[in-house]
């Protein structure tokens, strides 16, 4: 059992190193981020403790994934397996429980701990055989796979738009539009296998253009209903709505180019920082997009000669 946890630690360290950080700095950064985001969450909303509980449960559900647990069961004795699962859940839940205690939310802290203990004995099947029909099948794969994983978030964004109009809150409407684009960005977070790029009978420029064109087209399908509703109900703010839409396109293009600029590795820390700076100062997109474009065409030339 000790070896199992040492191995998990090694794996985490490798992930941090792959991101371009020393593990110690990675842990320090994670600690600072956790405290900072937790404080921000508790300052911003009165529902923070419930959001916290939801977050813990979503992390714990991943650990309870069926195939992972079947593997653990097959290699460890029943008693050891239970200890491992309890300990794993405790490690994940502990920072959240401590913060809830610090915030004197004792009942939520207790609920989080109890959930962690109960979920250690449950398994969940991650892969459903139900195939969700979608309008993105013509040009797989990012939107096809991504939408199926996150369609609930898009429904949530549409619900927010509805609420924005209902309570006459324009900012909430703009936020719902941003949610759609941020969710679309996540579709490009995963780097595909070399083979999936190699199969394209295109030069890097053509390949990138096809990727961006598909992303803009499909993100438009998802975002235009919100844009249309907002323009209809808030015609005086049309220029702001269109600016947000254009920004969404800009971030999407920048993220796609950033992904291939790092190829064959995942997006590195400097690229992440550049992208984050663009979020703070959108005009920088005009510099970063051509920079990433140049880098990505160079990186792709190896397998798309």
């Amino acid at each position, binding site marked *: 059992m000790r070896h199992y946890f040492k191995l998990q630690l090694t794996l985490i360290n490798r992930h941090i190193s792959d991101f371009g950080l020393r593990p110690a700095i990675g842990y320090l950064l994670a600690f600072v981020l956790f405290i900072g985001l937790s404080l921000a969450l508790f300052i911003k909303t009165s529902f923070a403790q419930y959001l916290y509980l939801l977050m813990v449960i979503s992390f714990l559900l991943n650990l309870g994934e069926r195939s992972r647990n079947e593997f653990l069961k097959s290699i460890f004795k029943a008693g050891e397996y239970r200890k491992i699962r309890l300990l794993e859940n405790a490690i994940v839940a502990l920072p959240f429980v401590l913060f809830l205690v610090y915030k004197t939310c004792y009942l939520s802290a207790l609920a989080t701990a109890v959930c962690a203990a109960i979920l250690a004995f449950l398994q969940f099947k991650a*892969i459903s*055989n139900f*195939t969700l029909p979608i309008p993105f*099948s*013509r*040009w*797989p*794969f990012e939107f*096809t*796979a*991504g939408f*199926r*994983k996150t369609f609930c978030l898009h429904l949530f964004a549409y619900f927010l738009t509805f609420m924005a109009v209902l309570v006459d809150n324009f900012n909430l409407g703009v936020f719902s539009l941003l949610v759609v684009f941020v969710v679309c960005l996540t579709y490009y977070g995963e780097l*595909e*296998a*070399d*083979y*999936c790029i*190699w*199969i*394209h*009978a*295109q030069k890097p420029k053509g390949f990138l253009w096809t990727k961006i064109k598909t992303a803009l087209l499909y993100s438009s399908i998802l975002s235009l209903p919100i844009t249309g509703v907002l323009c209809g109900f808030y015609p005086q703010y049309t220029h702001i709505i269109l600016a947000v839409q254009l920004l969404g396109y800009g971030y999407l293009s920048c993220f796609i180019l950033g992904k291939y600029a790092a190829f064959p590795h995942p997006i590195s820390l400097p690229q992440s920082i550049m992208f984050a700076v663009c979020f703070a100062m959108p005009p920088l997109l005009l510099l970063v997009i051509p920079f990433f474009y140049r880098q990505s065409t160079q990186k792709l030339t*190896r*397998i798309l*000669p």
Partner: protein
Amino acid sequence: MISIENLSKYYSSHQVLKGINLTLEAGMVHGIVGENGAGKTTLFKCIAGLEDFEGSITSQFSPLKNHLGFLQTDPFFFSKITGREYLQLLCNARQQPPTDLHAKNIFDLPLNQYANTYSTGMKKKLALTAILLQQNEAFILDEPFNGVDIQSNMVITEIIQKLRSLGKTVLISSHIFSTLNDTCDWIYLLKDGQFIRQAGRDGFADLEAEMRAFTVGDRVARLGLS
């Protein structure tokens, strides 16, 4: 025709392929056998252009990769992508319209199911169908019979023979000598990154006997089973 001259591949200081020379003629099926780690997959990746290498690969197709169908040992599938969408992805990638997929689904695969939920054999059959739909001129099939049921094995053998009759260039690898025996015109034995033996159809029996002799040797006896 694809001509490979003096191809070498290093991983750091470890030389995986040592000056490979090979000519793959159109309308011929070339087979490669060798132990795990002999360098078969690395050679295939070099030919496909997925790995850098020393030496040269020339062909009448420019670039070769745009006319090459590469069936990998363990094909990669995205989660939440159906079999039909996978076929569309590979056809779109080569600007081939994916028409009449129902009729062309010769392995009767459940195309509306997510491909990553397929069994090993079904994944292989889907990946093979995809590269056939791409209308390629050359094919590299890395372990095409691995994990596939006996009925599909027969279909794959027929497909390879059809590709030969259409004048396509085919390079395959297999751990099962008999499957290469049925399909290949030439078989090359790869060991420690170099071809140590090659044989035409009339030399297959001798090659198999030789392989058995040096591969099996006294290994089983060394286990000391009693």
